[in-house]
């Protein structure tokens, strides 16, 4: 790939932007660039990265999942209550149950979207409210706090293996799994087809409904897992956990170059988009920008990123005039052998 083509790849542009951002923050506060600090940033962003991967699969099929944050909070509350009332249960149960609960919530979205054929934004807008309300009903509005959790519940994500926390390992596995799924499985590839051109996808026999259902389940399962991780990380479960976080997740995807029109997006782009937001969120307090600026700056950055993206996307026309060779291919021979 030549240099200009390389420069046109969104991932490369983002990588450069992130490097610049790090350099700028590092210049103001060198402490931010220490490995320990960068590790913290990564740990802090891990949940966002996983959620962004799940969200990307959904957006690939021209969908959107606005209910991730509510799903996360609900699942988080379920696991928290479980930990509170059954502290004896091994952590493996929580680890299995969290994605399962999330999966079920996602499956409700998926079924309504794929088979009842309600637009994704409507369904997930509805479940965004409904799941959030269910937390309140489930918990009676009470929160579960630090000392009420069982030790393993809180400690597991912080355990480290080869110097990397379990939380990061989980994120790594989820994101790598997603990348393999999207690039190397037929189903993963069909997601691109479903989003790129649903009609054409139907014509080649791809079960659109199946794909839609699948992505919401997947996004739901990831949200569920993240629900446990989130609650465990901050050691508190209450109704408002991760309130409004769905938009951050979507923003990460958008910055990472996932097209909301469907069919375009990569796990690497998504991860970079998430990191970008994560670094900003973590850097502002460090470089002592007034916290009041944080929201405005993220908004500004999102706008800049999408405008830059749209510029590099802009179609350069068909360039009819530039073609110099007349399109006269050699005459075709009639060859009788069977097509393979």
């Amino acid at each position, binding site marked *: 790939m030549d240099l200009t083509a390389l420069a046109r790849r969104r991932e490369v542009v983002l990588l450069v932007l992130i490097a610049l951002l790090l350099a700028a923050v590092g210049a103001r506060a060198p402490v931010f660039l220490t490995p320990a600090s960068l590790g913290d940033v990564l740990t802090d962003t891990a949940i966002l990265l996983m959620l962004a991967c799940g969200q990307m699969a959904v957006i690939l099929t021209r969908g959107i999942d606005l209910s991730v944050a509510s799903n996360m909070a609900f699942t988080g509350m379920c696991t928290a209550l479980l930990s509170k009332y059954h502290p004896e249960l091994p952590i493996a149960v929580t680890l299995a149950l969290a994605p399962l609960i999330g999966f079920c919530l996602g499956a409700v979205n998926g079924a309504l979207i794929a088979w009842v054929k309600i637009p994704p934004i409507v369904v997930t807008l509805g479940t965004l409210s*409904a799941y959030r*309300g269910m937390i309140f*009903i489930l918990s009676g509005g009470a929160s579960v706090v630090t000392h009420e959790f069982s030790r393993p519940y809180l400690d597991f994500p912080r355990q480290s293996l080869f110097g990397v926390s379990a939380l990061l390992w989980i994120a790594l596995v989820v994101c790598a799994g997603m990348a393999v799924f999207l690039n190397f499985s037929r189903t993963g590839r069909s997601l691109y087809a479903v989003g790129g051109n649903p009609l054409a996808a139907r014509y080649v026999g791809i079960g659109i409904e199946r794909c839609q259902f699948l992505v919401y389940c997947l996004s739901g399962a990831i949200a569920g897992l993240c629900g446990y991780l989130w609650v465990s990380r901050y050691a508190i479960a209450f109704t408002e956990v991760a309130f409004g976080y769905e938009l951050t997740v979507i*923003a990460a995807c958008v910055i990472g170059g996932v097209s*909301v029109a469907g069919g375009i997006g990569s796990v690497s782009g998504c991860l970079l988009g998430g990191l970008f937001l994560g670094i900003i969120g973590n850097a502002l307090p460090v470089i002592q920008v007034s916290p009041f600026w944080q929201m405005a700056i*993220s908004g500004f950055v999102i706008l800049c990123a999408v405008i830059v993206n749209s510029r590099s996307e*802009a179609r350069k026309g068909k360039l009819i005039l530039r073609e110099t060779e007349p399109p006269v291919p050699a005459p075709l021979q009639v060859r009788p052998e069977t097509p393979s």
Partner: protein
Amino acid sequence: MTSLRYEVADRRKAAAADFWLRWEVLLLVLLGIVMLVNSRLSPWFLDYYNLLDSTFNFSEKAIMALSMTLIIVTRDIDLSVASIIALASVFMGLAAQAGAGVPLLVLIGLATGLLAGFANGAIITRFQIPAIVVTIGTMSLFRGIAYVVLGDTAITSYPAGFSWFGQSYLVWSIPFEFVLFLVLAAVFGFVLHFTTTGRRIYAIGNNPVAARFSGIPVDRYRLVLFTLNGLMAGLAAVLLTSRIGSTRPNIAAGWELEVITMVVLGGVSIMGGSGTISGVFIAVFVLGMMTFGLSLMNVPGIVMSVFVGVLLIASIAVPILIRRMLRR
């Protein structure tokens, strides 16, 4: 001309099922049920003054739902409306601190909304970026600016007469806000359903490319609609600020989703090109009356959101399922 001619009727014969499956009819039935259930469950519900007062709870959102309807009909969406309210309210507050009078305050509120909406529209049409993406960005940006300006302070120094817009009643104890909503609903309904402008809006929503090839300045329409939507948010900011008499950066938090819920429940397709103002109008009351009834029973807002979410999905799913069954 050659040709064998076909007999082509002017319009389709309407079937009874068509009427009963019309969205507005379904919503009216739903509204009836809501009113009935509420009046059964709460002795305070069917009270003239209570009902009128309850309109304070949704009038501002309903006004924004009107222009949001147009935006969604043209296949766009605006997630930044609530943030525009915050921004407009902040600028009004600053002006009030500087001693501006009531007319100037209103003007500033409307102008801020207008400009913010224009900024949305300009970015969307100039760079051809999907509206949902741009307005996610401006949603943070606008509210972020409000935080930057206000920080940890609140502005409460509004002139005395300013409270009129959000707190006054007209004849028969009807709140001014509500009357304004009714008037605007009539205007929007007329424009969307009985004018050529409305026709063009539907054309854009159904097929923006073909609309452009038909001589409709699509991007200009979208720009104008986003600006209008901003203006309506500015108006809502005037009403809300006047009603609560104070400005904080977190004002109207989360309203964007409530407004969109009203529109979608009103039968406006999120894919653009279809939906009516009358549907949205009824949906406003369905939601308003339902939440009012629930609040009379002191059901917490967060539990209401379960009702709203389920209602939203069910109201759309049920007709689809019925149609599917009828087709069998």
